[in-house]
């Protein structure tokens, strides 16, 4: 339970850091820290509770933003699920591949964001040109912010998974993955 609370605390801290970055950095360099959080929750050990936390983080961002409700929740949940699929294949256990993965996914997330907007709120969709203009800088800063957080997330996710309710845990009671 303590590990889960720590994960929640880190999520809140990243949310606040994103609010500070919004004030301090130009728009093309603002990292998407909530996305980094959602991606990290899909790492091995995150399990279903990681997915729920990722959707929750996206929902909080939805409430604090002016977008259609559910947009960021869907994007964060998808990010978490994608990491879960690719974790082993990409060997996301060292900072360098993890940062590369976060940068690449942040770019893909811009495309998903544009597509989701056109699907659910076409009147207010941000033009593709604007998305392309902002994507590279945001992807680089997101990757840079993600690298130092990897080991912290890995440790907390394993602890949280060990303490989780059986229905949410990825490990059996005997510790088999």
């Amino acid at each position, binding site marked *: 339970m303590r590990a889960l609370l720590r994960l929640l605390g880190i999520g809140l801290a990243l949310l606040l850091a994103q*609010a500070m970055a919004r004030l301090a950095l130009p728009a093309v360099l603002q990292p998407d820290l909530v996305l980094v959080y959602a991606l990290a929750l899909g790492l091995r050990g995150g399990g*279903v509770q990681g997915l729920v936390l990722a959707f929750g983080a996206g929902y909080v961002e939805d*409430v604090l*933003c*002016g977008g259609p409700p559910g947009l960021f*929740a869907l994007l964060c949940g998808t990010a978490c699920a994608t990491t879960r699929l690719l974790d082993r294949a990409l060997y996301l256990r060292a900072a360098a591949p993890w940062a590369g993965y976060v940068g690449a996914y942040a770019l893909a997330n811009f495309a998903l964001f544009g597509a989701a907007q056109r699907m659910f709120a076409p009147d207010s969709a941000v033009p593709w040109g604007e998305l392309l203009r902002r994507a590279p800088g945001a992807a680089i800063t997101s990757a840079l912010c993600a690298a130092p957080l990897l080991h912290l997330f890995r440790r907390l996710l394993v602890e949280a998974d060990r303490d989780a309710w059986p229905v949410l845990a990825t490990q059996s009671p005997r510790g088999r993955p």
Partner: protein
Amino acid sequence: MSELLRRFRFALCYLALAALCALGMASRHGPAELGFAPKLVLDLTLPLERMVTLPISELRGVWDDYAALVGVRVENERLRDRLARAEEENHQYREAILSSERFQKLSGFRAQREVPMVPANVIHQDLSPWFQSLIIDQGAAAGIRPGMPVITDSGVVGLIAGTTPGASKVLLVVDPQSRIDAYVERTRARGTVRGTSGHDCDFDYVLRQENIEEGDLLLTSGLGTTYPKGLVVGRVASVDRKTSGLFLGAKVVPAVDFSRLEEVFVILEQRQIPGEDAFSAADEGLWPAPPGGAVAPAPAKTAKADPAAKPAAKPASKPLPKLVKPPPQPAPDRNQDPPE
């Protein structure tokens, strides 16, 4: 079965939550009261966020006040020059306004009314760079309702998108979801100001033959249910006549600097569009009443026409039976006193 569920629980959970999100997005229909969960999230996160972002705002203030003043002397000279010209222009405008007021009193259609407003402080800026909203510290308890316009002394800020008892979310003019019907003050050319999620807006649906120029002032037209007429929206920054089609393209710089917004006013008045049965063509006097005389024409309804509107171009060959139009007003002449 339970083994199957256990095996695919991650995928099932993802699909269920994703479906919920999609439903949430698809069921959105304009401004509305916020539900319990968003209210809870706002109440929990806003105080923390304010605590964290306040020092940064203060630091930015220090930077803007002291460090970023390089070159201020040259700018000062330039501004003094502009001020002198503006004062001269201002003097002329004041004269014109005085003349105009006298004419309005004489013709009896000056509609002066006090609009109830609530002042509010900005306590949160949008987290995402894609949307442009902010949260203010006054909510439903102060009488604020979704859809009410938000302004400052500089011009239009946006409209209330959602409320809690103690806070309200404001959708800014520059948000891509924002649309304002506006006209150019100089030529009365009409169009729609649309947010772009950047620092400027597009001025859409302006006919190609309209005369608009860089620097033209845009005002709200008063059409629709949100904004009253005559609020400053912004200035035309550039005009692009190379676009294909019926309309030209124009960029608008909003009158309000949203990055430095601290206090705003919410206009506590929601305009209503009358229902279809509220008036009929016969009420308006556009057609003669039926021989039975069932519907009496509304007396002098159109006499409340806006004084700033252009006079009718030319009367029809056969005058409309009940339409009461104010006579075309002569252009105010400062050298000539109004008739007693």
